[in-house]
Structures are given as C-alpha cells and as structure tokens.
C-alpha cells in the first residue's frame, strides 16, 4: 500500500538525484579550459534528455523487468507498460511504481554523465552520443539488472551495493579509463602544457550540489522514510566530510590545502560510502571516507605520472573509490544496520562476494567499453580534428562560446 511519507521521500530523492547531473556538469565544466566548458556541460545535459527518454522507453524494462538468464531484464515494462500509480509488488512496495522507476532512471542518467569526465576536451559530440546510447543499453542496463534486478546474478549471489558503488561508480570509472585509452591524451598533455581549470568557483558549486543531491542518492535508496534512511543519510554526510578533510590535509602535506582538493575529497568520500550507507554504522563512514580520499589522491598521482589522460579522474575518484567502497562494505557491514555482517564482524564470505561484484562489474565495463568504443571509432571517429581541439570544442562542436562579448 502506498505510504505518503515514503512516497514523498522517493519523489524528492528522485528530484535530488536529477539535480546531481547539472551539478556534475558544473563540477566538470569548471575544471576544463574555458574553451571547452560548454561542450563539457553539454555531455551531461544531453544525457538528461536522451537517456531520460530511453529509460522510460526500454531502459527500465531491461534493468528491472522480468529476468532473462540472470543477465538482463525482459521487455515487459517496455514503454512503461504496467508501470503505474500502484506499487510494483517487487520493488519499493510502499510507493507508486512510477516513482521507483523515475528514481532509478536518474541513476542511469548520472552514471553516463559521470564517465564523460574521462573524455572531455577531445571527444566528438556525435561519437559521444552514439557511444552513450550503446553503452547505456549494453552496459548500464545489464549491470543494473545484475546488482539490483530481481533475478540478477549478483543480487542472487548476495553482493551488496546499497546505492550504486558498483552499478554507478566502478562502472563509470572503468568506462572512463577505457575511453581515455582509446581517445589518447589531449594535445599538449604529455608535453606538460598546463590544462588549467577555467572556473573553480563553478567546481565548488557543483560539488555542493552533488553533496546535497547525494542525500537523495544514498538515503533515498532506503526506499522508505525510516531509520535506515537516517542511517544512510548520516553515513553519507560523515563520509563526505571525512573525505573532504582528508584530501585537504593530503594537499597540505605536499604543498597547500586547495579548494579543488576539498571538493574532490568530498566527492571521493561520497563515492566510498555509496555502496555501504545502509549496511554500516554511521561512524564507519569516517574510515571509509578517509580511505576513499587517500586512494583517490594516490591514484591521481599515479595516473598522472604514467601519462594517462583520464582527464577529470573518474577512474581514480569514482572507479577506485567505488572499489574501496564495495570492499569496505564487505568489511564494515554490520547485521544490526542492514542485516549482514562484514569481515570485521566475522562475515568473511560477504567480503568475497564483494570482490566478485567488483571484479565482474569492473572487467565487464572495461571490456565492453573497449569493444563499443572501437566500433564507434570505426563508424564515426571518436576524436575531433586537431584544429577543432585547438580552437576548443565549444566553437567546433556546438557553435557557441561560454562568455560572449568582446567587452565586459
């Protein structure tokens, strides 16, 4: 039966997660050079449009429809057939089925938007769109089914993912890495040309919006306005806070406490707690947030040293942060919160299950991206022309410039 409180909670959480995509757009857009800010914003905004439609048309069904071989959903919810004002019976049984569908849709959108951080400043917009649609269909929907769908094999196995550590973050992180390899570094990257962030205040704003929206992402994943939602909410905030403080300190140790660092640390903390928020005690969020920041920090140092231009560090912050979060769930989970014990409370098996989840999703995302990416490269070419890249993608791909007018 529909509960009004739970329904509000899911609706507002859905709105919050929707807002994360514009937030992410700003977070990324402020970090690229000024000549590419609009193209970076566009990648996220275009997903709000395209994936927004496709999710209702077939994506929801492929993810949460009936099960085909534990691998993917069927087409029973095609075009929202049978998805109505009544609860679904299987998922979120106290809220309208439509609300659950919408909530899940926002996750699909932001996951695609997330990996755009790895391809900015050089990917052709047409190639991006084509790849995004393929990836959404052939990578996101299956993986969401594995982990959250009724009959999905990782769900059956018992791998835990409260709000998307594997489905969203590992998935996006490994995809970004594979695309970065396929696309090759931006011009001048290897030569040490500075790729200065063009608008850090927008990055900070984006980080603030993401943090805000993440309450819907994680605490909304409780699917009811209950104690578990409060637990997830508090854990989310604590992990973000610990992540932000940690990254600030790391930057300070090496040089200076930077604004970009605090923003990045907060996001790392939020990523880390995502799979765990409804399974661990809130105080466990502190080590989880610290861990996510430390891992993200050194992964960035490492990939920079290796000359890998995974431009906005989706792999380091989301991919590796997601891996850490999934494993940390297997470590810190406690039956008193989410019914399952992790390594710390004797749940060694759970930890192994988490490893299975991490490895299978990570490997699948990387491999599938590689194949699809090669395909798209063959068909339309992944990368803009050299002079288009020099002029900037705002002008070359979108015929616009961000800050118009010769004169103030």
């Amino acid at each position, binding site marked *: 039966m529909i509960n009004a409180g739970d329904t509000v909670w899911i609706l507002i959480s859905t709105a919050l997660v929707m807002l994360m995509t514009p937030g992410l757009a700003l977070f990324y857009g402020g970090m690229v050079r000024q000549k590419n800010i609009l193209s970076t914003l566009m990648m996220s905004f275009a997903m709000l449009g395209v994936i927004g439609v496709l999710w209702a048309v077939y994506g929801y069904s492929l993810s949460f429809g009936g099960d085909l071989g534990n691998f993917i959903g069927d087409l029973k919810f095609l075009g929202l057939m049978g998805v109505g004002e009544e609860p679904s019976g299987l998922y979120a049984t106290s809220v309208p089925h439509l609300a659950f569908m919408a909530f899940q849709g926002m996750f699909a959108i932001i996951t695609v938007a997330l990996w755009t951080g790895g391809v900015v400043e050089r990917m052709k917009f047409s190639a991006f769109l084509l790849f995004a649609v393929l990836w959404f269909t052939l990578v996101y929907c299956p993986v969401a089914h594995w982990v959250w769908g009724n009959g999905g094999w990782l769900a059956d196995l018992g791998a835990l993912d409260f709000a998307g550590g594997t489905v969203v973050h590992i998935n996006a992180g490994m995809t970004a890495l594979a695309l970065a390899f396929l696309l090759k570094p931006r011009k*001048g990257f290897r030569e040490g*040309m500075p790729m200065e962030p063009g608008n850090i205040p927008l990055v900070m704003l984006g980080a603030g919006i993401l943090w805000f929206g993440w309450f819907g992402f994680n605490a909304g994943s409780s699917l009811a306005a209950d104690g578990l939602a409060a637990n997830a909410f508090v854990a989310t905030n604590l992990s973000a806070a610990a992540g932000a403080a940690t990254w600030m300190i790391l930057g300070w140790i090496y040089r200076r406490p930077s604004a970009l660092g605090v923003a990045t640390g907060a996001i790392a903390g939020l990523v880390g707690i995502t799979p765990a928020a409804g399974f661990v005690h809130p105080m466990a969020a502190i080590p989880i947030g610290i861990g996510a920041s430390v891992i993200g920090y050194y992964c960035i140092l490492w990939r920079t040293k290796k000359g890998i231009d995974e431009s906005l560090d989706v792999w380091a912050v989301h991919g590796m942060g997601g891996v850490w979060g999934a494993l940390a769930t297997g470590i810190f989970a406690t039956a008193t919160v989410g019914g399952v014990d992790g390594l710390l409370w004797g749940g060694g098996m759970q930890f192994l299950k988490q490893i299975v989840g991490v490895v299978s999703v990570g490997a699948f995302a990387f491999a599938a991206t590689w194949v699809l990416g090669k395909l798209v490269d063959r068909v339309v070419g992944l990368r803009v022309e050299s*002079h288009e890249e*020099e*002029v*900037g993608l705002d*002008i070359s791909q*979108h*015929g*616009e*410039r961000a800050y*118009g007018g*010769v004169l103030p």
Partner: protein
Amino acid sequence: MKKIDAVIRPEKLEPVREALAEIGIMGMTVSAVSGRGRQMGITLQWRAGEYKVDLLPKVKLEVVVIDEDVSRAVHTIRNKARTGERGDGKIFVIPVEDAIRISNGDNGDDAI
C-alpha cells in the same frame, strides 16, 4: 630596441611561446584581444537561428628585443603561428627608445 606586436590565433600561443624560449627570447607580454581583418567573422548559434560576430578572439604578444634579434624573433613567430589560412594575424615592428628593468634599474639593451 624594437617592440614586436604580434596578433596571432589563441591556439598558436603555446607553440610560439615555446619556440621563442628555444631561441633565447624569454621576455614577453601577452594579452587577450579581439580582432577583425580579412578573416570573416564567426557564425554562432542562438537558440534557433544564428548570428554573426565580427570580432574574433586573438592573442597579442608584445616582445621587446634588441635590434639584432628582430628578424629572428619575427621569423620564429611567423613560422609557428602560421596555418596559411586567413586570420593567422600580423606582426608589427615598433621603435622603442628606452627600456628600464624595475627591479634593479638596468636600462637600455641591458634591460631586455
């Protein structure tokens, strides 16, 4: 001493900057300008339809060099800033009567 004013494409700043450093010309002052010339303006998108902008973003380099270095500098800039298309920009050579380094008071050619 001469001041070389070079108006170039923004995306060519990087190679020009490096090439000047390689021939030992470090001192330079750079500014963001807009320019109009033989190059047509640029057509930008409005929500629907489009509009033309006449003044295009360019970069102005000001490099003061001693007389002997003028042609080397001009050459280097030309080579690196060139695409062969309209809009590559121009180089102007302007006389300079004196130069003073603020930090230590050096003046004349020493200050360059």
